[in-house]
């Protein structure tokens, strides 16, 4: 995380330029569980991608490619909507 800027370094009007903005890593919201994917059961239905409130499902083209644990808050929606049970919640030691 960056430090706090002095007033002289701020863009007028509180404008945030997207390419210069930093996003806090909300993965630290998780409280003991994280999603884990079994790729052998995944059928690339993409429902987890759509339901994830934190855009934490990573894709390679239109195929499931993993979960971004930097942003995943552990809400378990991906596991709940997965039609094949390919995503399960497991212990999170991070």
């Amino acid at each position, binding site marked *: *995380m*960056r*430090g*706090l*800027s*002095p*007033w*002289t*370094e*701020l*863009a*007028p*009007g*509180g*404008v*945030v*330029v*997207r*390419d210069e*903005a930093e996003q806090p890593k909300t993965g630290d919201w998780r409280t003991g569980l994280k999603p884990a994917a079994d790729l052998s059961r995944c059928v690339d239905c993409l429902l987890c991608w759509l339901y994830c409130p934190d855009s934490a499902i990573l894709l390679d083209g239109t195929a499931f490619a993993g979960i971004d644990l930097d942003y995943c808050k552990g809400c378990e929606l991906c596991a709940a909507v997965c039609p094949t049970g390919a995503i399960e919640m497991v212990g999170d030691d991070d």
Partner: protein
Amino acid sequence: MTTELARAQLLTGGEAVAEAMRQIDPDVVPVYPITPQTPIIQTFAKFVADGRARGELVDVESEHSAMSAAVAAALAGARTMTATSSQGLALMAEIVYIAASLRAPVVMALGNRALSGPINIHCDHSDSMLIRDSGVIQLFAENAQEAYDLTVIAPRLAEHPDVLLPVLVCLDGFTITHAAEPVAPLDDEAVRAFVGEYRVPHALLDLGRVTTQGPFAMPDYYFELRRQQAAAIDGANDVFAELCLEYEELSGRAYGPLQGYRLEGAETALVCLGSSAGTAKDVVDDLRADGAPVGLLKICSFRPFPAEAIQALLAGVETVAVLDRADSPGGAPPLFAEVAAALAAGAPALRSYVYGLGGRDLHPADIGDVLAGAARHYVGVRSEPCPA
């Protein structure tokens, strides 16, 4: 502020402002009617209907939406103007503050009218005073010619890269808006050349540079954003003075943040805003003819308030009489309070500080600094980076 009678047209203040708007030809004009500014928007609407002004006239459903649309359009990348008075300004007051803090260079004509209640459609300055703390620039016109000229200057002031703030051109309701006077407008080409192209540093519609505008800020940043905004308005009178010099070359008429009238050797000085200055000038002339050492300080730029210049101009005056066309029940009238602060600023016994904006804590050490005379004006604002 002379008017060349040979080139003059007979225009009300409202028509004069509308004519200036036509020549500026803004991109977006959101409007909502309220007496006594309606002649401005009606005259302008006719220009649009006749194809003499090409912008988008947006007949919104309230003044709050007029300023909301204006802020959004200005930030989107379009030169935007509007007009209001009194209750309309009160209704849009929430957004006027936001216009200033988002640095939206909207130009708005304000037909000064009393705030209700009782409901009254005639002139006073209570509407301007309602939003005096909003951070917008407020310029007061003495007559229809000044209303025209200040409207032409306003976009350059609002859009200046060091300013980027809304500018209100204030003209007394009915006294200026509805009274016909000789007004000498500039040529269309001269106005176009003077106002130039509109540019903001981060246009929302610039898809090549994606921005988020109008953020939420916690106590760790609100104060710094406000401090930055204050710096912009503090520098605006210097910019205004430069623009007035440029405008004088063009028009032969001189403007500035304030005007001293027969203050040399004055023992008593009157201070006021708006059309009363015109009346006062006549009275001062009559009294001076009888040998009375009186003078007038007419203030054009109420915000930013030209405190240092006022100290200089009133140096040596024994009695300063401040005429406020607005009241502050239970406290000092607004113009009086500003003049008193300007004159007292040099006195060692009186100092001013601002602290705690946006929830920023006030620490015991800060209080100690204040008492020791060691604190800055903005107590607790970050002027150096704070490491993570």
